[in-house]
């Protein structure tokens, strides 16, 4: 059933048997799951999976699980949306949005990694699972952990967005707020994993957890008709997702699912937390930790564990990395919403805004296919855009009042050649000042 060979250090190559461990005892390097691709390649083909349900588990041969007891069979299988209106706004020919903002059950790509981590925790006989989180992972561990009968312990920075706190406690999960930033929470969580022996998904279950991110890549390739996009833009926090999408594409090529035309990988970060972008742009590839300061809280990891690998994957693919200001993040959120009807969280705003800059600078080719990876849902980070939300009129319940109000705003919406396409500022024009207006 399983094609897993074991765990291997990405740095020194030392090999270890499958166990809840993430770190090489020889050199401290991260451990990676290895598979027997030669055996797998003889029997695993596109038609093997064609009739399976639309979820991330249709690629289970490429996930590090042993038995049939899968936790979270419904996770994944999110839409790949052809985004023509956003494409016109960015000035590109063929654009797609991979929309994990509607992932099941907690509306972010973290549902994928948690599904694998909890399946593995059950295999290891663990009864308590937890994580250090910037929010989305907390939501995913809480919902899936509770559903599958685990005790939970979730640590987050105390000042996280309200929706992400509520989206954790509502499930009855044990949540602990920590006075500190994410990097401090992570450090504490690492010590807790050492002391208590729990299954901390991003600490001692990390090699298995990270593999769940590969399914974003498998799905994109299958949804494009078993083809890789020419370019892919992905936001980066710890750098794992982008790295694993690259690994997924490499695996599909090795197994003959896709041809040998590779994908250029582009990484996006907030200007206030850009250690991976800096490592790509300065050419060193070495990560210098920063103190994170950005509205993109889910990306606010100043010391990204997989940053070195993400920077290397980007450089080797011929891609590039770009950072964007908080203002550009908000513009990115609104641009995606106003063109494609997709409401992304701040991380998605980072991806869209970075893509726009990369196209404008000529780094991202306009005339080949591009996929933007949207990782989380805008309803979780409404705080970030509330202050700049468009105004709207409040009227009396009379037809004349509506006609007056409509007449005063109609002119504003007729200014662009293509209905609904944004004016050159990139943002929808706000409604006219009005005697009575309201924001969010």
């Amino acid at each position, binding site marked *: 059933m399983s094609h897993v060979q074991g765990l291997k250090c990405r740095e020194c190559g030392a090999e270890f048997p499958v166990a809840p461990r993430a770190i090489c005892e020889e050199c401290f390097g991260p451990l990676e799951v290895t598979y027997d691709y030669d055996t797998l390649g003889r029997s695993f083909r596109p038609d093997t999976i064609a009739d399976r349900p639309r979820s991330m588990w249709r690629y289970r041969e490429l996930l590090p699980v042993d038995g049939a007891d899968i936790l979270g069979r419904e996770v994944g299988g999110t839409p790949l949306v052809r985004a023509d209106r956003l494409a016109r706004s960015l000035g590109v020919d063929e654009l797609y949005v991979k929309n994990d903002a509607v992932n099941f059950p907690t509306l972010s790509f973290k549902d994928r990694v948690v599904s694998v981590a909890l399946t593995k925790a059950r295999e290891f006989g663990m009864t308590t699972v937890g*994580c250090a989180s910037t929010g989305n992972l907390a939501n995913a561990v809480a919902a899936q952990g509770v559903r599958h009968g685990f005790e939970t312990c979730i640590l987050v920075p105390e000042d996280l967005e309200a929706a992400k706190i509520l989206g954790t406690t509502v499930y009855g999960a044990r949540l602990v707020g920590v006075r500190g930033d994410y990097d401090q929470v992570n450090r504490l969580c690492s010590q807790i994993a050492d002391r208590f022996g729990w299954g901390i998904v991003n600490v001692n279950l990390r090699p298995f957890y990270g593999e769940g991110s590969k399914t974003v890549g498998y799905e994109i390739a299958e949804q494009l008709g078993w083809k890789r996009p020419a370019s892919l833009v992905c936001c980066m926090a710890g750098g794992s997702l982008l790295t694993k999408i690259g690994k997924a594409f490499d695996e599909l090529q090795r197994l003959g699912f896709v041809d040998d035309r590779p994908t250029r990988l582009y990484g996006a970060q907030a200007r206030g937390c850009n250690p991976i972008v800096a490592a790509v742009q300065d050419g060193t590839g070495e990560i210098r930790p920063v103190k994170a300061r950005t509205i993109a809280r889910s990306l606010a990891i100043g*010391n990204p564990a997989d940053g070195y690998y993400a920077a290397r994957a980007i450089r080797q693919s011929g891609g590039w990395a770009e950072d964007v200001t908080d203002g550009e993040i908000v513009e990115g959120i609104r641009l995606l919403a106003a063109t494609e009807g997709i409401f992304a969280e701040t991380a998605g705003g980072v991806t869209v805004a970075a893509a726009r800059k990369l196209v404008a600078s000529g780094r991202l080719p306009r005339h080949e296919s591009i996929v933007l990876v949207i990782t989380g849902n805008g309803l979780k980070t409404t705080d970030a855009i509330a202050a700049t939300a468009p105004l709207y009129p409040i009227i009396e319940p009379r037809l004349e009042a509506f006609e007056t109000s409509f007449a005063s705003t109609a002119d504003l919406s007729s200014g662009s050649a293509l209905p609904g396409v944004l004016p050159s500022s990139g943002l929808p024009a706000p409604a006219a000042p009005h005697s009575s207006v309201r924001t969010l």
Partner: protein
Amino acid sequence: MPVQVRIPSVLRRQTGGDESVQLEGATLGDILDGLEVRYEGLRGKLRGPRGEIRRFVNIYVNDNDARLLDGSTTPVTDGDEVIIIPAVAGG
């Protein structure tokens, strides 16, 4: 009062199970030297051939990442806490 060094489980095979140890020194480099003297097996695990802290090793002096301070030359004083932690994935 010397500096307290906390050792992660991944290194405790080399420390005979010790979770923490007290060491004297003026800089973080001194403390790491002392650690390698006390536990021969740690030599080469934390620092590369030129004495630089290895890429996937995080060392904190009190609350601060040594890379954000002065690395091995970061001064330490009595009562400080040095925490060694492997890199951890994001969330």
